[in-house]
């Protein structure tokens, strides 16, 4: 099936080479980091995780969110998601690959990464994170490839895939729960030490991931003959709506506990992020951008009349995605370190090489995604289009 990826129009190749260009620039920046050490980033003794780990955390959510289309289709026999499942699974694959790369570029001694396997340590959450992420990658590769291959040959997928699909549905929330446990079990970091963190992670993931999937589905429809389905996109829009509301509700719960209890340690980070603390307010503008985007997204999503307009739905999804990208991909991780263990404030902002490396990891993710989507869409265009075509959806 891979051969489908080497036939494409001019637009396809321009996009591929654009991504390769970003990857090359980021690779050079990484060589610089590899030689000089992580001192070329904005990280410090006090803020020892930054953009890389933030992006990792956010992308685990995107990976997990594939379950939002797989679950209704396979467990509830919701046929309209039939054409979206492969897009969800392939998005998960690209997202997990980005997660692994973000962990890798964050390591001070990357060549020793296999020590995690050589000295397995069951008391470390990082150990489980490695297990669940690589397991999830394998599951999605196996399921996506097999189901697509069967579709291409116009036969039913082999029976052994079904149990794996059920397993992947259970597996998806686990990857994000374990990622939340990286933070939620650390004594002395008040901002992270909250039982609701995993729930917050899942809610934001199930809003942000499907929002991205809607945007991707709209792009696929615009530039190819394959239509993932109007109703499928609308159903996904409902999922984004509910999960975004739950996410904001959960954030509200955190704010209530912090500010009604008035315990300083619980209030400090929120104060730092949204208002500034002791004159330090570097993150305040982007946190407010995130909040305003969340508000715009909710207003556009909550009213069905607005949501049904696909252009406005796309705007709402972009707002959702970027709001959560700032909140979880940056504020959540950096905020945990401010103030530090001594109630002192060291601020963090990524450097240019750090940003270029992060951009290159995203470019690698999009390259993988583009190739996988190209394969999937080519097969759908030539083989499956009639089988699940718009006509049949309308007839149901």
């Amino acid at each position: 099936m891979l051969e489908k990826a080497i036939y494409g129009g001019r637009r396809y190749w321009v996009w591929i080479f654009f991504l390769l260009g970003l990857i090359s620039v980021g690779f050079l920046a990484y060589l610089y980091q590899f030689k000089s050490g992580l001192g070329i980033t904005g990280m410090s003794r006090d803020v020892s995780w930054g953009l890389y780990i933030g992006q990792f955390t956010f992308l685990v959510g995107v990976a997990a969110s594939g379950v939002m289309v797989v679950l209704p289709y396979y467990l509830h026999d919701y046929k309209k998601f039939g054409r979206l499942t492969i897009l969800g699974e392939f998005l998960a694959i690209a997202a997990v690959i980005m997660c692994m790369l973000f962990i890798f570029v964050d390591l001070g001694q990357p060549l020793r990464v296999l020590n995690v396997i050589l000295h397995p340590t069951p008391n470390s959450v990082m150990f489980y994170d490695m297990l669940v992420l690589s397991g999830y990658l394998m599951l999605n590769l196996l399921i996506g490839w097999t189901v697509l291959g069967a579709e291409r040959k116009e036969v039913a997928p082999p029976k052994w895939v079904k149990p794996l699909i059920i397993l992947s549905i259970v597996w998806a929330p686990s990857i994000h729960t374990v990622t939340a446990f990286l933070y939620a079990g650390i004594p002395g970091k008040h901002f992270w030490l909250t039982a609701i963190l995993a729930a917050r992670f899942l809610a934001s993931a199930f809003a942000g991931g499907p929002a991205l999937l809607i945007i991707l589905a709209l792009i696929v429809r615009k530039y190819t003959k394959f239509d993932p389905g109007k109703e499928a996109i609308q159903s996904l829009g409902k999922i984004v709506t509910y999960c975004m509301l739950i996410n904001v509700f959960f954030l509200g719960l955190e704010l209530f506990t912090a500010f009604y209890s008035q315990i300083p340690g619980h209030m400090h980070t929120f104060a730092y992020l949204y208002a500034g603390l002791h004159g330090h307010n570097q993150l305040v503008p982007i946190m407010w951008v995130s909040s305003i985007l969340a508000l715009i997204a909710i207003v556009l999503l909550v009213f069905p009349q607005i949501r049904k307009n696909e252009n406005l739905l796309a705007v709402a999804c972009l707002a959702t995605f970027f709001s959560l990208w700032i909140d979880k991909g940056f504020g959540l991780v950096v905020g945990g370190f401010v103030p530090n263990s001594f109630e002192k404030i060291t601020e963090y902002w990524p450097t240019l090489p750090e940003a270029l490396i992060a951009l290159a990891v995203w470019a690698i993710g999009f390259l993988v995604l583009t190739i996988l989507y190209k394969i999937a869409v080519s097969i759908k265009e030539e083989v499956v289009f009639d089988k699940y075509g718009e006509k049949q959806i309308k007839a149901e």
Partner: protein
Amino acid sequence: MSINRREFLKMAGITTILGIGGVSAVQGVRNRVEASQASRAPEALTAKRWAMVVDMSKFKSEEDYQKCINACHLSHNVPHITDNPKHEIKWLWTETYEHAFPGNEDKYRAERFQHMPFLMLCNHCENPPCVRVCPTQATFKRKSDGIVMMDMHRCIGCRFCMAGCPYGARSFNYKDPRPYIDGSKENLEFPTRMKGVVEKCTLCYERLAKGLQPACVEVSNGALIFGDLEDPNSAVRKVLSERFTIRRKPELGTGTSVYYII
């Protein structure tokens, strides 16, 4: 002797299984013995759980603190990074009361306590969060005496331990530390580190093995009291039974081994 393919494969398989089994059996035994137990010098200082008491009343001037810090940092080749405070490496340093004991501030407390510098170091917790989170056991609690150790050759530089430590005791080598070590003062008996690994106070395990007190304790003129917390007759237990002491963030249940007399 002739051998067909089937027999060859059988033998190869059995040999491999025996080989792997043998290696893991040896590993199993090896993991139970620590290097420090295997070949301990007769003069080595030993304890069930090492602890330290910092007697603040004996620190009179800036010099008293600096003496201890210098002794530590020189004997462990701790780089002196001044060009970027974000990359500082600290094993032993000072913080004022409000920063050392956040949550215990009181604006009416006497001025001299508010801004009194306290010596900070790794607390060698009984229940260390850094050890719990480390994915490679590069930081581990030594079974024999409770020292929280660092294996800088195993550390992958993920910095989970730095997030995990509630006492800010850990430093990461954001760049190659060697250019920041004064070559004329380098201690050739203690290894220097490379970039990309985490380091911290290891309670001078290398000096204890030779029967010496930790470097900071040695030069402190009795301001730092060092001994076995589990031995009722030790110097630390004697002080703890007589004087009022406090520890940093006791509410976290980490069981710190560093006590302060104010």
